[in-house]
């Protein structure tokens, strides 16, 4: 029973990463936009939702005690808004300016989380974030199971929405822009506008993931949103298969499992005083894995399914790898 409760806990965290991965898949997989500030967007969602839904606290502004669902919506609006602003600023320029700017966004947001004590609680973070089904907190299995079901429902909703969009005219235009911008332009599509839309949608989904994660754990601190997170999510999408929404979910669960297992292994094998040092090996492993996959199997485990429209079926057989 305890093991099952832990499995549910593990899967819930993995699925919150799956939501981030789905958001990244809209930006990178479908549109080819390189976001190096994922942790910033996720953290923004977490903090916005936490500020709105926590009970009133004397030491900081915020704490409106609003319902969780409202926090989620506000997180999506904030993430989408930020992504929109970044998109408007950089998407007219060369593609790697977006990478550098998003990298800067994550650094700047990290400073805001750290330094504005009156709003974010500073380095100590924010506690008492309301958790869904908190009435059942005494029973670990029921509580974790219900939260798993809720998170899975969010993943499913995102998945169905994105799959629908993928096969819609909008999704086709997006891929056309990614594959051949000039040709898409010649057909009357506006590449900059499409990119900005995709980037904003992805940012909103990432912020939603941050809010879901924050409400499940009940506590957030700036240390949760380091560049490490960005890096993990990238590894997840690239391993799973960029461009494939099922691959994004699979990659999230798989890489999170590798991460958790190697972490457990390190705490078994190494003495306590060497563990922080050994933990850096975990990052080396994931970094090397990312590079190796980019070199040898850039399409990931589940390659992108080439589709033109759902009426025409799969197109993979026509395309040489």
């Amino acid at each position, binding site marked *: 029973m305890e093991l099952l409760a832990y499995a549910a806990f593990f899967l819930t965290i993995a699925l919150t990463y799956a939501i981030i991965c789905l958001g990244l898949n809209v930006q990178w997989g479908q549109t080819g936009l*390189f976001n190096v500030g994922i942790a910033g967007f996720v953290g923004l969602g977490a903090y916005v939702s936490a500020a709105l839904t926590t009970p009133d606290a004397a030491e900081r502004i915020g704490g409106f005690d609003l319902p969780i669902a409202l926090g989620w919506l506000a997180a999506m609006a904030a993430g989408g808004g930020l992504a929109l602003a970044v998109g408007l600023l950089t998407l007219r320029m060369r593609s790697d300016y977006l990478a550098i*700017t998003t990298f800067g966004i994550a650094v700047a947001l990290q400073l805001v989380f750290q330094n504005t004590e009156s709003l974010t609680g500073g380095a100590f973070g924010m506690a008492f974030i309301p958790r869904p089904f908190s009435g059942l907190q005494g029973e670990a299995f029921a509580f974790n199971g219900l939260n798993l079901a809720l998170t899975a429902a969010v993943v499913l909703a995102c998945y169905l929405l994105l799959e629908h969009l993928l096969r819609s005219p909008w999704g086709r235009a997006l891929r056309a822009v990614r594959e051949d911008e000039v040709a898409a332009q010649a057909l009357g599509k506006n590449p900059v506008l499409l990119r900005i839309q995709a980037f904003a949608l992805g940012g909103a989904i990432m912020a939603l993931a941050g809010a879901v994660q924050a409400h499940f754990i009940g506590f957030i601190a700036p240390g949760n949103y380091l560049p490490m997170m960005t890096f993990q999510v990238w590894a997840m999408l690239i391993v799973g298969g960029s461009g494939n929404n099922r691959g994004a979910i699979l990659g999230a669960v798989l890489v999170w499992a590798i991460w958790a297992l190697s972490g457990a292994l390190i705490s078994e094998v190494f003495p306590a005083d060497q563990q922080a*040092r050994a933990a850096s090996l975990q*990052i080396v492993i994931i*970094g090397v894995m990312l*590079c190796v996959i980019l070199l040898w199997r850039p399409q990931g485990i589940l390659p992108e399914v080439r589709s033109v429209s759902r009426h025409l079926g799969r197109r993979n057989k026509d395309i040489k790898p």
Partner: protein
Amino acid sequence: MNPQAIIDGLIAGSTIGLGAIGLTLTYSILRFANFTHGDFLAWGAYLTLTVAGVLGGLAAGLGAPVYPFSFGWGLPLAMFGGVALTVALTLGLDRILFGKLRARGADAIIIVMASFGASMALRSLLEFIFTAKPAYFTKALQIAKPLGLGMRATPDQLLVIGMTAVLVVVLHLLVTRSATGRAMRAVSENPSLAGVYGVNVENVIRVTWIIGAGLACIAGVMAGLLVQIRPYMGFDLLLPLFSAAILGGIGSIPGAMLGGLIIGLAEAFAVQIVGAEWRAAISFVILVLVLMLRPQGLFGQKGA
């Protein structure tokens, strides 16, 4: 306003500028934003530290400080070794990663992503080998001497500023006057056309890595000498490096140096107003302003 900020800014700016030159060269010639460049600085510092340790073991007298500086002959000697090893590191990385992706015709953005992965791996490897505890080139303390106008600087700091100036002038002459420099500019304009005209593109790429890695190592040693050596020192400099390179205009060596100095000075002055905890945000603000007002940078060409 405290005039000491000018000295502080020039010193920080020297490190940022030297790092940004390497970044802007790889950016314009290899055509990708290299996220590992910050880690080259950190690796350069640690490799130099290792070589200095070995040298100190061979000849103990090398560690004794040479007046008026805080370090002995061992450090400049070790820096040659550090530069050679950092160059070997980047050439090795190019051979097993970037070169392979280039040969496959991968998109620039895939190479950027690979550099992002490699940067995480390199940085964590440093942390694993040397632990997160800061290291120092020298334990000697130096007293800042007054320079007039209320400014003070240690001999080490003045040496860093002087050395940066010499390096930038030499490099500028190399790129503007020599055949190699002409080949580099040709490749940054158009690699395939340069290849057709008989420029050895592979050679140019190698020279670019050598210059970038050498300067990164020197900048890392400077930062290590004046502040401290940490595995994350390069990562923390990455945003200032990018901001300086973009502010100066991608591909421009004087631009990158000037950009670095501007960022360094802006940080030093802004820290007095908003507090040191916001230091890292200054280069981000400058980056956003440049992208909004003059995306091609100070010395960049339109449409870049």
